[in-house]
């Protein structure tokens, strides 16, 4: 590394480790107190909040699911009136998709990617903080609306004309559309940060073929977000315009097109499924080797499968619309493309099976959840191939068969790996192990509860039970199975309760973890648990796919970074050759105020279009404050 000419700036060479840690800590730590907590830009703190908030929304969405199961547990039940039921299923879907699944995956990326690529903070740290606040305010907006009995009641996909001006009076659909805007702004911000972090901030030597699979998965996910989310932001904005300003994007009577909504929504909505699933693929591929005692089988195949899935996911969206009456050729094309996604998915499954086959599995909780994932996801994939065929889909469209299918792929395909990931990375995030005994309890309760809850829904769907109904007549043959499903849902909820109890208890009372409790090979395990604010005392140098391979006790490091300002290393995209020392921004309270100003503008614009004009003034002021040079050493480069 080159040194500064003057050599007056303090560098991390020729000083003891303790002294280096002291200087780095001074430079990278946030101030104590409330304002320090609000203004922090440490990716670990921000991502930790993101994860915790997303899990709060998982609990809330889960409670809504339990409310629906209570209502459906018997025919003609009167626990919930039809209007509230419509709000509840819309809130359940919107909360789970927009406030839990996508944010939690992006938050895991924001926490893990900088550690796994060996850098000191995420790219654009203030944008990261901004993103969290926007996400939080969007979630609060939706849930306050629910508390006020004005929650959206048009389904999580808000089809027009049902959600349009003629059939959705009041502000319910507008609140849904604006919540979308909040969460998409937040998601896009994190996606950009992840992509830049992966491309430009990898540790020296971590060429593209040495990136951990999780980081690859998060990179592909980020590109899916960047390319898919604009479609939904456009559609939610035009829906608000139709409803508030009187445009006619979706109004056939004035030359608009109601079907345009479905195309735009599913052009986002199908990649969304992979935005949730691909990180899970990365998690499984990264966790598995630590529990089978051998490296992952087929690294290159898995990475190619990830990228293929990402590309293919943009060519499938019409399979959500098979029953709207599209041309036959279109339906055939999308049947074929939907079935072809099974090829990369199959490659992934076989790579994991081969890894398991050739290794010596140690059945700890994360591995149990991964095995549960493989079983459940394969079943969900099978029903996916079934509903990819038009005649079959026409039969089961809008029935509980589809409900069963997508819960199998979403919970089986994403939540199981996510829980495995929490068990696996909890020691890194908190410095403490989660209880193995409670872990096993939570796995068996969740696994059995899940299958007992959702498998009978296939049968209910084949027996003709439609989705989104708030009750059914006792003469219909669905009564006993529905009661069974509702009781099984209690088991599933119990499993999640055990999981949350375990996490909360272990956070304070768990056994100390040490830096690498699983003997894993990726870089995040090279630093202490929890990692210090600067992540690594010295930025590591990578020379293989598994930098912490057992038996190699020495990890080469980079020297020559400044310690008096937040500084990290920028490397080339392909080979990760060092290019420059780049400063990383300091803490700032302005991202918080910018998020407040943006939220005021967005919420206000539900009621009058003039909010966009007047509300943009505070946004501009806060952005000026955000970017105004403060004379800190970080401003120099």
């Amino acid at each position, binding site marked *: 590394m080159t040194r500064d000419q003057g050599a007056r700036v303090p560098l991390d060479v020729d000083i003891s480790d303790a002294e280096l*840690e002291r200087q780095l*800590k001074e430079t990278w*730590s*946030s101030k*104590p*107190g*409330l304002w320090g*907590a609000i203004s922090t830009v440490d990716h670990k*703190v921000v991502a930790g909040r993101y994860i*915790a908030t997303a899990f709060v929304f998982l609990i809330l969405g889960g409670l809504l699911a339990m409310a629906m199961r209570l209502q459906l547990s018997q025919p003609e039940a009167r626990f919930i*009136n*039809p*209007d509230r039921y419509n709000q509840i299923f819309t809130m359940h879907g919107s909360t789970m998709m927009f406030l839990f699944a996508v944010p939690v995956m992006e938050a895991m990326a924001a926490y893990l990617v900088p550690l796994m690529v060996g850098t000191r903070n995420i790219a654009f740290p203030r944008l990261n903080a901004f993103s969290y606040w926007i996400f939080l305010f969007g979630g*609060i907006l939706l*849930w*306050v609306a629910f*508390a*006020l*009995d*004005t929650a959206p009641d048009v389904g999580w996909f808000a089809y027009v*004309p049902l959600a*349009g*001006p*003629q*059939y*959705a*009076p*009041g*502000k319910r659909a507008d609140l849904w559309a604006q919540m979308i805007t909040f969460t998409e702004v937040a998601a896009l911000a994190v996606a950009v940060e992840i992509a830049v972090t992966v491309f430009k901030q990898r540790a020296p030597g971590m060429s593209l073929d040495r990136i951990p699979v999780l980081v690859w998965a998060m990179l592909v996910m980020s590109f899916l977000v960047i390319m898919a989310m604009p479609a939904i932001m456009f559609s939610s904005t035009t829906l608000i315009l139709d*409803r508030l300003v*009187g445009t006619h994007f979706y*109004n*056939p*009577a*004035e030359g608009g097109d109601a079907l345009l909504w479905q195309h735009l929504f599913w052009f986002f909505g199908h990649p969304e499924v992979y935005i949730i699933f691909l990180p899970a693929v990365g998690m499984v591929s990264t966790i598995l080797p630590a529990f089978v005692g051998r490296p992952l089988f087929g690294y290159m195949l898995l990475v190619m499968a990830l990228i293929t899935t990402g590309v293919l996911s943009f060519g499938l969206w019409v399979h959500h619309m098979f029953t709207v009456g599209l041309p036959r050729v279109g339906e055939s094309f999308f049947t074929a493309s939907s079935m072809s996604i099974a090829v990369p998915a199959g490659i992934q499954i076989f790579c994991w099976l081969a890894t398991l086959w050739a290794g010596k599995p140690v059945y700890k909780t994360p591995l149990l959840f991964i095995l549960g994932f493989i079983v459940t996801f394969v079943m969900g994939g099978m029903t996916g191939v079934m509903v990819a065929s038009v005649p079959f889909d026409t039969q089961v469209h809008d029935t509980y068969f589809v409900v069963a299918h997508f819960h199998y792929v979403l919970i089986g395909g994403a939540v199981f790996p996510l829980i495995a990931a929490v068990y696996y990375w909890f020691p890194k995030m*908190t*410095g403490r192990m989660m209880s193995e005994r409670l872990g096993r309890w939570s796995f068996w309760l969740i696994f059995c509860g899940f299958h007992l809850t959702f498998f009978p829904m296939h049968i209910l769907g084949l027996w003709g039970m439609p989705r989104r109904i708030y009750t059914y007549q006792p003469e219909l043959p669905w009564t006993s199975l529905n009661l069974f499903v509702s009781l099984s849902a209690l088991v599933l909820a119990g499993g999640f309760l055990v999981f949350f109890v375990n996490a909360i208890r272990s*956070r304070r009372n768990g056994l100390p973890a040490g830096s690498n409790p699983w003997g894993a090979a990726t870089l995040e395990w090279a630093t*202490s648990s*929890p990692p*210090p604010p600067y992540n690594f005392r010295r930025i590591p140098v990578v020379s293989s796919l598994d930098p912490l391979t057992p038996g190699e006790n020495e990890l080469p490091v980079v020297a020559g970074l400044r310690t008096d300002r937040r500084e990290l290393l920028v490397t080339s995209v392909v080979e990760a050759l060092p290019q420059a020392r780049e400063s990383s921004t300091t803490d700032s309270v302005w991202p918080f105020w910018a998020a407040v100003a943006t939220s005021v503008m967005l919420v206000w614009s539900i009621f009058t279009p003039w909010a966009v004009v007047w509300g943009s003034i505070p946004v501009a002021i806060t952005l000026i404050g955000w970017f105004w040079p403060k004379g800190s050493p970080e401003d120099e480069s």
Partner: protein
Amino acid sequence: MRVQSAGAMGNKMSARIWFGGAAAGLAALAAVVGWMREPRQYRASPPLTAALDQLRLMPNAISGTPPEVYFALGKPYETTAFDLSQGKRLYSWFGCSACHGEGTGGKGPSFIDGWWLYGPSMVSIVASIRDGRPHGMPAFRNRMTTDEIWQLAGYIKSLGAYTASVTATARNDEKTGRPAENRAPAALLFNQGPEPLHPDQGPTP
């Protein structure tokens, strides 16, 4: 070691902040939970509708006192977008436009010219729909539920309102031949020029 203890300290601090924030959030949530702004009844409860049916009209069947329960409910049929929109759908489902056009009148009187033959109160309009009126207005007592009659009355009242309301009905996708319902009251529409539309009833209000 020092790093770890600092991390633990940070955790404790942030935990306290989060606990405080969560408590404040929950308190705020609890405060607003009781404030249900726009309840929507898909099935109105029978005792309520029975009470709503108890209008006390003046002897000439023009104006009168609405049932107490209407005020206890918060005048929903005039103030919630859902009920107004339901009223609008009932307007087309029950063929009101056959005589009243799109509110502009035809064989029957207009609703948007500022004139109310039996007065602009909800009770009068409900009574007109329920019991019918001379010169051709049929009674809908046996064709609509009480809930529906009130919804329709609320919508009709909003058509010819004298003052602007923050509550609006749903907007039509189709073009309409009259101004939108959610406009501010158009003084121009009420200004009928030198020749009043209803010369038999004196000057316009």
